């Protein structure tokens, strides 16, 4: 079958696509920030073995990682209103993505915290630092550095997974493209366009991750 690939069509729809891209970036950026916060708090609770909370965080992480994100999104957007918690689309999206990314970040940050040399932990104890001070003054400066590459990998995943939000009607990149496809049937053009956009976004972020890894290693490099 013959199909005329129309580059001009993509060009003509650039404003709409960029609008979608802006929503994608916005929802991802907010979710990523919250997810990082969840990761740090959750990892601290796990590392300090705070009773009850530690078990809760552990269950939360397991639950998120062992269920499909799409079902989580539907549960939050369509299920929660039944118990009186009706959130707007954008907020639902942020809650879903932040909860998802947060679960991965708890493990990422915990990995970093556990990589803090034992001597530092003992030294902090000997100095009489309180657990909260240990986290703030020792674990975060030393451990977070180790965790940053994996935290950023999760951020990349959150960005990709923001596409899932098209299924609840958030007007992000994929949604905009699908809407155009439904109206004007230029399927290949639209998918090529958003495919390239996602690819570029992810590659830029991954490149930043590698640069950052390089920079973060600097204090430890032998000159």
């Amino acid at each position: 079958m013959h199909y005329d690939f129309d580059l001009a069509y993509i060009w003509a729809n650039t404003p709409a696509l960029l609008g979608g891209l802006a929503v994608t970036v916005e929802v991802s950026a907010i979710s990523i920030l919250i997810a990082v916060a969840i990761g740090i708090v959750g990892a601290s609770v796990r590392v300090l073995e705070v009773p009850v909370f530690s078990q809760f965080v552990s269950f939360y992480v397991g639950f998120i990682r062992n269920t499909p994100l799409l079902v989580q999104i539907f549960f939050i957007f369509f299920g929660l209103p039944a118990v009186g918690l009706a959130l707007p689309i954008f907020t639902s999206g942020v809650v879903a993505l932040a909860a998802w990314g947060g679960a991965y970040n708890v493990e990422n940050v915990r990995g970093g915290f556990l990589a803090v040399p034992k001597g530092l932990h003992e030294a902090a104890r000997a100095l009489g630092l309180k657990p909260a001070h240990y986290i703030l003054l020792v674990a975060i400066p030393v451990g977070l550095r180790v965790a940053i590459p994996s935290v950023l990998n999760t951020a990349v995943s959150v960005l990709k997974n923001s596409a899932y939000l098209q299924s609840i009607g958030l007007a992000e990149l994929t949604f905009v493209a699908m809407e155009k496809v439904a109206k004007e049937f230029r399927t290949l053009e639209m998918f090529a366009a958003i495919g390239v956009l996602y690819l570029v976004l992810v590659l830029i972020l991954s490149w930043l991750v590698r640069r950052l890894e390089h920079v973060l290693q600097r204090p430890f490099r032998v000159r």
Partner: protein
Amino acid sequence: MQLILDNLGLFAAGLGWTFRLAVVTLLISTAVAAIIGTLSVTRSRALRVIALVYVEVFRDIPLLVNALFVFFGAPLVGIPLEPFAAATVSFSLWGSANGAEIVRGGFNAVPPHQRESAVALGLRPWQIYCFVLAPQALLPMLPPFAGLFTLLVQATSLASLVGVGEFFRIGQIVIERTTMMSGHSPAFVIYGGLLVTYYLICSVLTAGTRRLERRIARRTERPTSARALVPQESV
């Protein structure tokens, strides 16, 4: 609760499709991953670039976009696909890209002196691959592939978007039907139930993966899991 019991047959059928989809996809992914992964550890630069592009494209583009593209795009180039076939193709592309990274990790986990010794013994390149590297690389690949299966079980929920009647789609259908008949939506109970079911299935799979990992680590007595070498992927 009554609602779930009434539709138990439907849910079971949905789970059946979920597993069929996951298993078929895993088999295809494994076969393709073996080829792409091997390409990525060959000496030839061109082949490595091909493997790299394949892996990056299918890992970096969201799986959902991939699935919609295969389903809606295939008819335009003259190969209309049934929903199940479209989902299988799409998930296999994604799964094989992730699998290829596992295969690469497996080969990289083989200590370099193995290859050097094989070269010194005068083995041909294909003999080095088949008789020296592959057998040693295989074992550490097993846990990550088990992990990939868990991811695929979760990924199958996306097939609902292209119209496969798998577990999640069945849940949606039951919700729509009940809402229309009774006037109030059971979304909370049904989606909650789906989450719990996925959780139980995938936790068992994850626990199995961990055990496999530990057993293999014990057997080979060196840090062999390719898992550490594979960036996390997720659905």
